[in-house]
């Protein structure tokens, strides 16, 4: 069988998302030669050094990542020319003939949203038919919800705004980064609680505090970025296997990046 190149696979993946024709996107080949023959695909939440090393060791030379490998949302290399860690990471990719492909916008733009679908699967939650980011769960407390998220996602450091005893049943999710909009609109909507990866403390966190201070019965959960998208990329790896038979496809999990002191 003829070699399949990174570009051929990337084009197939993008076409299968059905989310093409975007006026602008951060999805791009961030490193490597797109004509490189692919030995295997490593799917990951973020192309951090440890995960790339694991992929290289396993002989998977096409890394497909939700979050970038070079420490900025759009892989802006300004300021990095003389950065030693940048050179080290680039050299690792070169030494293993790796291609790094950022798959962010197209995966979330897929119908249904690939991150939300994968997260729902990991959580065992059923989304509303018309909205993959809205869930109606059996009533529980905000504390119980936080405990469930922690247990199912392996998230030890999540942070919560709101009354732990607050009854919650309707959950809005904005996995990954929740920008001020739609974050504010989601908190103002029918949901009792908004679950996201990260959001600025001076935007949606302040808004959630103010809603509570104004008498609103609301909660906000910040999972951390890795815990909030990993299952979405695990699901992405399974999805790719449906239409990529030439090379192995494998999801590479990464541990939580931070810890809380005892």
């Amino acid at each position, binding site marked *: 069988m003829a070699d399949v190149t990174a570009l051929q696979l990337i084009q197939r993946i993008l076409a299968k998302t059905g989310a093409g024709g975007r006026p602008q996107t951060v999805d791009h080949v961030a490193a490597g030669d797109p004509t490189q023959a692919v030995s295997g695909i490593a799917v990951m939440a973020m192309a951090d050094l440890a995960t790339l090393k694991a992929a290289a060791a396993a002989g998977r030379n096409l890394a497909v990542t939700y979050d970038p490998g070079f420490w900025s949302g759009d892989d802006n290399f300004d300021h990095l020319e003389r950065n030693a860690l940048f050179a080290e990471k680039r050299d690792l990719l070169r030494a293993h003939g790796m291609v790094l492909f950022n798959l962010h916008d197209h995966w979330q733009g897929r119908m249904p949203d690939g991150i939300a679908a994968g997260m729902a699967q990991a959580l065992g939650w059923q989304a509303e038919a018309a909205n993959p980011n809205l869930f109606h769960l059996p009533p529980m407390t905000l504390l119980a919800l936080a405990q469930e998220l922690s247990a199912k996602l392996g998230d030890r450091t999540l*942070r919560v705004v709101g009354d732990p005893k607050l009854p919650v049943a309707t959950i809005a999710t904005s996995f990954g980064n929740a920008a001020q909009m739609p974050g*504010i609109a989601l908190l103002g909507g029918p949901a009792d609680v908004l679950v996201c990866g990260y959001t600025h403390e001076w935007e949606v966190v302040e808004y959630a505090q103010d809603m509570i201070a104004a008498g609103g019965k609301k909660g906000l959960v910040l999972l951390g970025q890795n815990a909030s998208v990993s299952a979405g990329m695990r699901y992405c790896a399974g999805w790719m296997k449906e239409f990529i038979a030439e090379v192995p496809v494998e999801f590479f999990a990464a541990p939580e990046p931070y810890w809380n*002191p005892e």
Partner: protein
Amino acid sequence: MLDRRDVIASGAGLAIAGATPARAASLTVGDVLTRMRSRIGTEWFPGGVDRIIAGSADTEVTGIATTMMATFDALKAAVAKRANLVVTHEPTFWSHPDTVSQLRDDPLYRTKLAYMQAHGLVSYHLHDHWHARLPVDGINDGMAQQMGWTRYRDPAAQRRYILPPTTLAALAREFQHKLGDRTLRVVGDPALKVSKVWESWGYCSAFPGIDFLDNDVDVLVIGEAQDWDLIAYAQDLVAAGRRKGLILLGHVLSEQWGMKTCAEWLKGFVPEVKVTWLPLIEPYWNLKQPVFEIDTKL
């Protein structure tokens, strides 16, 4: 709508009547801002986010409250302290430039604004100039005092501190203890030996954060950063074997003692009214301590 009791309490009614010759000339918000501009130690520069966010400069000041973030709770606390000028380091309306164009019909925006109008509150965003204050960034000054670190500051770099040697875990516990920080997070080896600390209180973007981490320091301490830029860089440094750590305190707790310093500073040149610092409680809890303290506990 302005409540009549508030009008009388603020003295505005008497000023209009002009019937109190014994009373000193009134102090307006504009007067306070003029004094601040002449005492910041640097040129007052255009642009940036510092401005009156709600209320007007000709409002007579009954009292001043400084706070890290003009949350609804903080505004209520200011009213309880009879302060009607709230000097806030962070936004009042949920974005750095306090952009409200998309919020005109937002019920919470209307409620918060109506509360401020009903109580004659003026919110002043003091962010850029408080950081630019000379000889030392006002936030850095207050945080160093709260941590007891003033004597450890590197004379050549105000953001760098040389502490007695400790470990990353012990340094994290020191922050927990001194700032009341239950949810701080740490990247790096808990046993890492640390002495040289670089601070960037508040939000830290990839640049200059990456340069801060690459300086001759063991640990960078910040308020918050995005997981996919600066935090990712710290993770990669650790994975590459560099002996570095990153501590994420949370934004409010990482800067708010700088607004205590701001209150002390204002007291020095606004003797006419009481100046109060309103400390905020950490907005979050985590599973180790699921406590609810933000709701009108100020």
